[in-house]
């Protein structure tokens, strides 16, 4: 019995390590998308950081309503990205508002991996 758990642990460790090393380039891609600035409808400059800020461990502020938005870093706000419906809803809204279009599946995957790695 013990042998089996040991093997399982080693396997899990290996899986985690490989996930980590795979994640880095994707996460970097996500970071680039996160700070990418786009010209908004009113000639204003828009990015994900407009409301969420550049430091993911700090609270953001909704640009128009000034409401505080909890930090996006998973390490600071553990409840983040747990509800796929919530994630999908905000990607739809925020990509449309910020970039004027929906994000592609690949963009979403990269951004999520960046946000989760923080």
């Amino acid at each position, binding site marked *: 019995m013990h042998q089996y758990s040991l093997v399982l642990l080693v396997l899990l460790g290996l899986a985690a390590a490989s996930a980590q090393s795979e994640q880095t380039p994707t996460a970097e891609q996500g970071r680039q998308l996160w700070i990418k600035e786009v010209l908004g409808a009113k000639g204003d400059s828009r990015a994900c950081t407009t409301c969420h800020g550049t430091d993911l461990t700090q609270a953001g502020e909704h640009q*128009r309503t000034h409401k505080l938005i909890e930090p996006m870093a998973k390490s600071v706000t553990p409840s983040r990205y747990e509800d796929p419906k919530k994630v999908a809803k905000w990607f739809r*809204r925020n990509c449309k*508002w910020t970039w004027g279009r929906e994000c592609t599946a690949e963009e979403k995957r990269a951004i999520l991996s960046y946000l989760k790695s923080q």
Partner: protein
Amino acid sequence: MKKPLFTLVLAGLPLLAGSAMAEESFSQWLFTLDRMKEFRPVDNETYAEECGACHFAYPPGLLLAMSWQKLLDPVALEDHFGENAELGEDTLAEIQAYVIENSAENSYYKRARKITRSVQSIEPPLRITQVPYIKRKHHELTAAMVRDNPEVGSLSNCNACHTQAEQAVFDDDSVQVPNFQHWDE
């Protein structure tokens, strides 16, 4: 109708004070009566989550049902004051029912009734900040206190100044305009 009820309550006071349990319900009754001066606090989780994500979750008693209906139209929500606030069908139906059940004219709370009275002769506004009663209550505030105040930014940001807005309390004791010691000076 009101007087006999009041006398009855008065006569019942010593009786109520007699038992601890009754006393508790009496203070609760007083408490409720006191709270009825304000608005009914938001008590629907879906509403608090969905309509409190970008701004303070406004208590439904702040607007008439007709205003809420216009705001919560599925197409209108796609362009909600320049923002996308679309909702799924089921979520929207729950929020609509909750908000209309507790809208100003369907509420017995004192301030909600004042809101209803103040919009009686006009087209019900979509903004709470356009309701005459709310406008009147804030007409003394300067741009420096609201728009140009980095911690406020807009009058729509109720809870920036009303420290008990989450409990739907807006009385003068709980107001604190950030960066201004005495707002009425």
